[in-house]
């Protein structure tokens, strides 16, 4: 069995184990942990689009919104009809089945919207693509704001289904998919598109197909993250999926180092904790947060993993050689 499959299995079992014991956790702490899991899914999936394939998308919050509202509609509107058939609203089996189906549909609908946005928008490059995807995300938000069946601007109440297991199982799955995809002869094409489209075409790579594929897979997981988010916060407002949310995810990808999954995961954890930790600054919170971002970008412009490489270099050059000598 491939090593990555074993890692995925271990990660899923670990999240199941922790999930069973997570009942006693401090609710605030738990809240932050789930937030980290959801942000990992968002950042890793966006990293496939922005980092590996080099297509600057600012629409990730839009795909997340599509997923969040799709999943919420399924559990809210279909739930009461389906749950009794599966064994009642109190049976964990029934709610889990419903939730998984809802999440899967959320991913599918988001992927479909990714396809719709991707095909026309991917003719654009760089800044133009960023603006087009941003426009798409805003359209989604405004449409949701005016959709009365899902509460419109007043918000949409959603049952609590998200738990530690689903969040971290899906975060592991996202990472598994992105890492394995990119680490294959087929997947190197994403990086080729990122590096040089003209050369990629000359190597026989269908650049449009690769870009659309990255968009579909990325938005699929963004949709799933949205579904998890809605069923965790238990209340959805379209305003929560605005432009700032997209920027937040892009920042994670850039800080983690474009096209570096480990770095992006670290950045997702760090930034989620940072937003929480800077709460004590009250009104000055965003200033502190932004200042930290500036400092991080200045010290490691190639992403957080640079710190790791520098540390390893330092270790090898100064400490390890001395230990060997001694």
């Amino acid at each position, binding site marked *: 069995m*491939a090593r*990555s*499959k074993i890692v995925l299995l271990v990660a899923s079992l670990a999240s199941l184990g922790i999930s069973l014991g997570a009942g006693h956790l401090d609710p605030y702490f738990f809240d932050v942990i789930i937030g980290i899991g959801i942000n990992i899914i968002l950042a890793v999936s966006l990293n496939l689009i922005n980092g590996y394939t080099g297509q600057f998308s600012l629409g990730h919050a839009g795909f997340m919104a599509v997923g969040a509202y799709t999943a919420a509609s399924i559990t809210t509107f279909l739930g009461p009809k389906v749950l009794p058939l599966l064994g009642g609203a109190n049976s964990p089996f029934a709610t889990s089945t419903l939730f998984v189906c809802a999440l899967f549909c959320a991913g599918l609908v988001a992927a479909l919207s990714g396809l719709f946005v991707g095909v026309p928008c991917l003719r654009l490059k760089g800044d133009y693509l960023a603006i087009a995807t941003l426009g798409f995300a805003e359209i989604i938000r405004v449409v949701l704001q005016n959709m009365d069946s899902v509460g419109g601007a007043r918000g949409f109440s959603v049952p609590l289904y998200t738990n530690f297991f689903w969040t971290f199982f899906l975060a592991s799955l996202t990472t*598994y*998919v992105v890492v*394995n*995809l990119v*680490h*294959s*002869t*087929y*997947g*190197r*094409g994403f*990086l*080729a598109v*990122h*590096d*040089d489209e*003209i*050369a*990629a*075409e*000359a*190597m*026989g*790579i*269908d*650049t449009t197909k690769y870009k659309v*594929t990255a968009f579909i897979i990325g938005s699929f997981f963004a949709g799933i993250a949205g579904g998890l988010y809605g069923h965790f916060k238990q209340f959805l407002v379209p305003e929560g999926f605005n432009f700032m949310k997209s920027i937040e995810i892009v920042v994670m990808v850039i800080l983690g180092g474009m*096209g570096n999954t480990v770095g992006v995961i670290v950045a997702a954890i760090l930034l989620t904790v940072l937003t929480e930790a800077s709460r004590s600054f009250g009104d000055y919170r965003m200033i502190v947060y932004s200042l930290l971002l500036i400092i991080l970008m200045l010290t490691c412009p190639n992403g957080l993993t640079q710190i790791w490489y520098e540390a390893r270099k330092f270790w090898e050059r100064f400490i390890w050689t001395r230990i060997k000598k001694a």
Partner: protein
Amino acid sequence: MSQPATTDDPLLRLANCSIRFGGLTAVSALELEVRENELIGLIGPNGAGKTTVFNLITGVYRPGEGQILFQEKPIEGIKPDQITAKGIARTFQNVRLFGSMSVFDNVRVAFHLHVSSGICHALWRGRTFLEEEKLVDAQVMEMLEIFDLGRYRNDNAKSLPYGSQRRLEIVRALATRPKLLLLDEPAAGMNVTEKVELMKLIQFIQDKYRIAVLLVEHDMQVVMGICERIAVLDYGIKIAEGTPAEVRRNPKVIEAYLGEEPDAQ
């Protein structure tokens, strides 16, 4: 050196090809044939339209008039990646390697045309996928070793010395398994020793892989040294074609390269 195969059907044929950019006719009514296993040079002064001819063949531009036939099938208007899949590979005048990837991965990318596994295989990582990946690894390494790049396998492609970068670009093009290799000014920026090595390399490739090579070149030493046949472009028009000796004596070519005779003005 291998002798050109004497078949009636050329591998590639440009028939009456023209392309205009606004008021400028970059290539005008060009007739050009490349036969199988032939090494042919395309030369001309700056701005003569040599690279434009490459871009026509590889599908970057579509000819305004005329036809391009590859193995007797028209290929004009087909997307560049499909043309590569049909068996025409190219290198670029200004080296275009994939900068974020290692030397190994640069060549591996080119193999994707010849692997059967796609997304699902890559995700499932089954036995067939792993075996195929292993096979690709071995083939890539073999190619790198042949061209003396094996020791750089894990280095970033853009960190190589310039001459090796050019060589790597040629290896990458060869990895798509072309029938026709287009080299766009491979000697640009090279010193004399590197040029001699390059000439040997091109002849070696043509011999080993039995493919046709179309060489766009500025450098007369290289072209005259290795090409069996040379076509000369000037202002988008083919002014001469023939063996190196014939071309060298052609007064039109001398005029295009060295200017008109003073008494003609």
